[in-house]
């Protein structure tokens, strides 16, 4: 199992007076650039620590929000390419359906791959609904744009015999010939995220790594959709490394201390959805059927998080105990966390990439480093040894 350390690079000093929206409309006057600079350097320091401790690294981007200061993954990746040595650098994700210029995206990602000497993992994502009002990409065509941008980027990275032409529905170029081309051949590994079975099957047919967030004990169904389509397309079982799961993680020497840190990490799901309501559901972002269901349910989306015994959990309001019960958070002493992760892997039928949000909100540098260190020394070695339910099958294939 690979373990990726992730933080959203939040700006919690602005979390208290948000007037109902931490995203899109919160005036940037609420951000003090000097504090932001300190926070950015701190987050990079912690990723350096993670690199030295044997973690891989995950980064992301959001826009116009106090929940995540990283507004371009390329800047974060550029810094990390130089200051880390061993970690795989996973961007999950790059919202390529929102970007106006996939040529630029292909150039940037290839450059990152070269500078990092082939450590880039490219996660392409649809993006949360709140990205739409900022990027102004038409949500009706968002997935169509996503796939055209995807096709273009892969083609740009793998075409080596001079310029090619592109006259698509959304993008037009006449002389595509990116320099540098990527370090990894034929291109850096591709990841994506999903919450539905149809998309899971599409990712399986492409052989991409599929990650989910907050799906808790409903994860198995999505993974099985992927497994079925993967077996049909590739004629062998999907290995555990085809799956990623983003979990909140808090470790400490004592359970009481771990729970205290767990409360701080839980500030991510508790703030993530604080958004002016019209921006939560842009037109065309959901299908007509999903919108009808939403209207019948007074605007509340159906819960997608479940505990092992079938209770539904709202990520925004759940207690730390409920988050643990739902497999959304792994929290406790090293022994407890190891047991929770293994139990979750078993329930998924195999999980090769644990994406761990090991920092969120106000969690201090000292607590973050201590939690990362404890996990690296006492949990990670055991997880590296751990034999997954799907692993024997994959080795035999």
């Amino acid at each position, binding site marked *: 199992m690979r373990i990726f350390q992730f933080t959203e690079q939040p700006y919690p000093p602005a979390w208290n007076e948000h007037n109902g929206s931490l995203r899109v409309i919160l005036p940037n006057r609420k951000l003090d650039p000097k504090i932001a600079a300190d926070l950015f350097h701190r987050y990079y320091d912690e990723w350096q620590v993670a690199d030295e401790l044997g973690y891989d690294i995950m980064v992301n981007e959001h826009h116009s929000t106090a929940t995540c200061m990283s507004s371009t993954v390329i800047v974060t990746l550029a810094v990390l390419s130089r200051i880390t040595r061993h970690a795989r650098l996973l961007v999950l994700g790059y919202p390529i359906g929102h970007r106006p210029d996939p040529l630029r995206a292909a150039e940037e990602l290839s450059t990152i791959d070269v500078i990092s000497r082939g450590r880039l993992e490219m996660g392409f994502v649809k993006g949360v609904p709140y990205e739409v*009002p900022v990027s*102004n990409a*038409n*949500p*009706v065509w968002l997935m169509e744009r996503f796939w055209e941008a995807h096709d273009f980027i892969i083609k740009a990275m793998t075409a080596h015999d001079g310029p090619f032409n592109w006259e698509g529905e959304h993008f037009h170029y006449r002389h595509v010939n990116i320099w540098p081309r990527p370090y990894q051949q034929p291109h850096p590994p591709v990841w994506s995220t999903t919450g539905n079975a149809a998309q899971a099957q599409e990712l399986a047919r492409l052989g991409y790594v599929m990650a989910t967030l907050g799906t808790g004990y409903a994860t198995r169904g999505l993974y099985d959709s992927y497994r079925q389509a993967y077996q049909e397309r590739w004629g062998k079982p999907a290995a555990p490394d085809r799956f990623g799961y983003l979990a909140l993680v808090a470790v400490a020497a004592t359970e009481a201390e771990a729970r205290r840190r767990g409360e701080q990490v839980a500030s991510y799901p508790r703030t993530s959805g604080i958004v*002016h*309501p*019209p*921006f939560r559901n*842009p*037109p*065309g972002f959901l299908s*007509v059927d999903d*919108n*009808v269901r939403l*209207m*019948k349910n*007074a605007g509340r989306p159906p819960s997608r998080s479940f505990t092992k015994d079938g209770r539904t959990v709202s990520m925004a309001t759940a207690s730390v105990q409920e988050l643990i019960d739902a497999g959304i958070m792994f929290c406790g002493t090293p022994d407890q966390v190891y047991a929770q992760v293994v139990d979750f892997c078993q329930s998924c039928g195999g999980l090769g990439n644990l994406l761990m949000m090991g920092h969120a909100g106000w969690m201090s540098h000292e607590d973050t480093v201590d939690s990362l260190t404890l996990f690296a020394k006492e949990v990670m070695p055991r997880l590296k040894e751990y034999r997954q339910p799907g692993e024997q099958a994959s080795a035999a294939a």
Partner: protein
Amino acid sequence: MAGSATADISLVAIDGVQTEIITQGGGRPLLFLHPECGLEASAPVLGLLAKAHRLVAPSHPGFGRSEAPRWLSTVDDLAYFYLDLMAALDLQDTVVVGVSMGGWIAAEIAIKNTSRISHLVLADALGIKVGDRETRDIADIFALTEPELAELLYADPAAARRDLGAMAEADLVAMARSREASARYGWSPYMHDPKLKRRLHRIDVPTLVCWGEADRMVRPAYGQAYAAAIAGSRFALIERAGHFPHLEQPQSFADLILNFVRGKPTSEERR
């Protein structure tokens, strides 16, 4: 010409697109182009217009039960689609009436070809750029809560309130389709075509621009700018109406149009 007193609703293939069309009444055809909220067959305005005209009221592709093939993605596409519809139904001397997004479509039709059009009515029409680049002429309907939107849309917002929980499934589907289709055609540039204003001079049929006086989504001054760009057009305000005068004041709306077509100036006209 004798016409049906009751509304007929049918699906008709136009350019291969299954299109829901309400027809009612007889006489000179009146093509009614609905706004972004869609078209309900029960709307009283339809019967009022059909008293003097053969009313033809389609649901735009993507709205109501009309299909939305991928190739129809702009209001420019819709304008050509409706020119084809008028030809397919052989509408002659047609009064074209459009409200809001429907008004934008009507204007885009009329700059292309008026050979089947006798009169044009643009009610609270979207489609042109009036202010500077930092001034949003048209309120961003996708950035507002339902109560905020109702305040801008209606002279009497309380009367327009709806209980979604009590609505029929088919109506909810129509609402969801309307919202998506509005974004399909009007997301960016937001609810306008930067080229349209300079092309309005091509409109060569009698034109009435009418506006709900309480329209807070698109102010009457925008309508006056519309009228100023169409030579010989008239401008009229409709009292006690907001952005959808055909819903809030169907009688005055219909009277205004019928009198305009008959050539009678009305007391509402202030020009």
